[in-house]
């Protein structure tokens, strides 16, 4: 928001003419949000500190934080999220680079497709992976046909690598969006000049394009990290026994074991991680000047 529009907004017509202070109007939507979002959030926190017999206690934390289930899930969640994000950044950068700087006739269709992909549910990818790489999937059929093996040789889908590859597939568009926007702002004359002065493509990428892309990479990467940290659909649908992430622990504790307190303890940890990352993301976006809406909107 520029200074001029901020001044105009602060002096909005509604407030001036009726004499009602501007903040009155924010009370209604804020009250709704308080009941449906902040009130439940408070109860997660309260429940997580409730010991046996309903008294306030730190016991639920002591128990959960020392359990191998939680520690394993925390490490695995961070590992899956970071590797997926790195994969998304690499793949998204290469694809966005080609769409922007080596344009071809169908490039606009590709951008439209990327936008639509963002609106699809993530479990679509997990479902597709089971048809492609699952134990009865296409690639296993081909592999067994060629090698004559009796057991399906491809089984990475049911490991953390299956989840990571599925998340890279689903979340790469979230990185490409801000990158495409950043690349469209880049003055192509810079590339022309560098090229005519004899710079080779890799050098142009390293010295002209990458510096321009850093804010978009940071913003897209931190959004991607936030979303992969909280991803549930892909992990649930792949359903690998050994791949338990924090959201899966919450689901398992609360829904399958009816242990709300344990679920709430894990939820507090997950929410803290996630909100921290979100704060980082907002900070990076405000510095790069892009809007979150432009990265997430379909």
């Amino acid at each position, binding site marked *: 928001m520029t200074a001029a529009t901020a001044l*105009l907004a602060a002096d909005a017509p509604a407030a001036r003419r009726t004499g009602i202070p501007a903040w009155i109007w*924010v009370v209604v939507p804020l009250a709704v949000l308080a009941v449906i*979002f902040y009130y439940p959030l408070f109860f997660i926190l309260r429940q997580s500190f409730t010991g046996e017999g309903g008294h306030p206690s730190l016991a639920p934390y002591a128990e959960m934080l020392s359990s191998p289930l939680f520690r394993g899930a925390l490490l695995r969640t961070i590992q899956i999220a970071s590797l997926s994000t790195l994969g998304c950044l690499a793949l998204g950068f290469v694809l966005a680079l080609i769409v922007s700087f080596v344009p071809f006739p169908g490039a606009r269709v590709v951008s439209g497709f990327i936008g639509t992909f963002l609106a699809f549910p993530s479990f679509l990818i997990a*479902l597709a992976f089971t048809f492609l790489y699952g134990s009865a999937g296409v690639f296993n059929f081909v592999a067994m046909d060629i090698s004559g093996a009796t057991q399906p040789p491809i089984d990475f889908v049911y490991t953390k690598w299956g989840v990571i590859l599925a998340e890279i597939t689903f979340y790469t568009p979230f990185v490409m969006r801000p990158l495409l926007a950043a690349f469209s702002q880049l003055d192509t004359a810079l590339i022309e000049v560098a090229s005519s002065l004899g710079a080779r*493509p890799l050098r142009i990428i390293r010295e002209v394009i990458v510096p321009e892309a850093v804010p978009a990479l940071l913003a897209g990467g931190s959004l991607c990290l936030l979303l992969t940290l*909280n991803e*549930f659909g892909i992990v649930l649908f792949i359903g690998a026994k050994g791949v338990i992430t924090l959201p899966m622990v919450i689901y398992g504790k609360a829904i399958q074991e009816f242990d709300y307190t344990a679920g709430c303890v894990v939820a507090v940890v997950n929410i803290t991680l996630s909100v921290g990352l979100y704060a980082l993301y907002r900070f990076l976006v405000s510095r790069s000047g892009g809007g979150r809406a432009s990265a*997430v909107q*379909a």
Partner: protein
Amino acid sequence: MLLPSRPSRVAAWVLFFVLFVPVFGLPIVVVGAASVAGQWNDVLPSHLTLRHLHDAFVSNAGIELLTSLATGIIASVVALVIGTWAALAVRALRRRGAKVIGTLFVLPIAVPSVSVGLGLLVAFSRPPFLLNGTSVIVVIAHVVLVTAFAFSSVSAGLARLPAHFEQVAASLGGRPAYVLFRVTLPLLTPSLVAAAGLCFALSMGELGATIMVYPPGWVTLPVGIFALTDRGAVFDGAALTVLLLVLTLVVLVAVSRIRTRASYR
């Protein structure tokens, strides 16, 4: 031009399609093929059939589809009203206040959907709000998750709005309500329509919060799809997924058409 020689450009395009088609195209094609596969014991599916799609309409899935539609439409409308109201109200605040209140409205984006569901489960299972086991709790979960997107989408639209239209209307004696309904909201139509489409699409695919709070009588399509694939009916699951994607796409295409038309007005 980054790649001056034609062969290197062609190489870049080949690289693009070698990466793009298998990564993004193949999953959609494969789920589409599975939805019409009678059997799939080969590279390509065999015994093509519309049975799964047909079953989808006559079995539970028909009801699940309607449940998802109802949830998506109600949640989108509610989210759009709250989000637009909030965006308009926040715009009228002073700068510091607008920043703080605006953050309160977008914070649900940062909270994992499973935790949103757990919070509703814990908080709404006791007085004064006894909603656990009702369809209302599912709709509320969706409203929580999509309102933040409606808010930020409408806020972005408001920031791009030319301010002088409203000022001219007000200075000509237009009362605040008149300015709001005859000037601001019509100018905002493209953002509102885009926000509605986004909210609906997100709600249609929502799984994490829904699976935490849904009662047996209010099973949405994604939850139904998970139940099917979990017990091994993967082809039926694929058929329902295709149905979900088509429905989402139809709404998104319709939205982008309305949006284009509205922006020409």
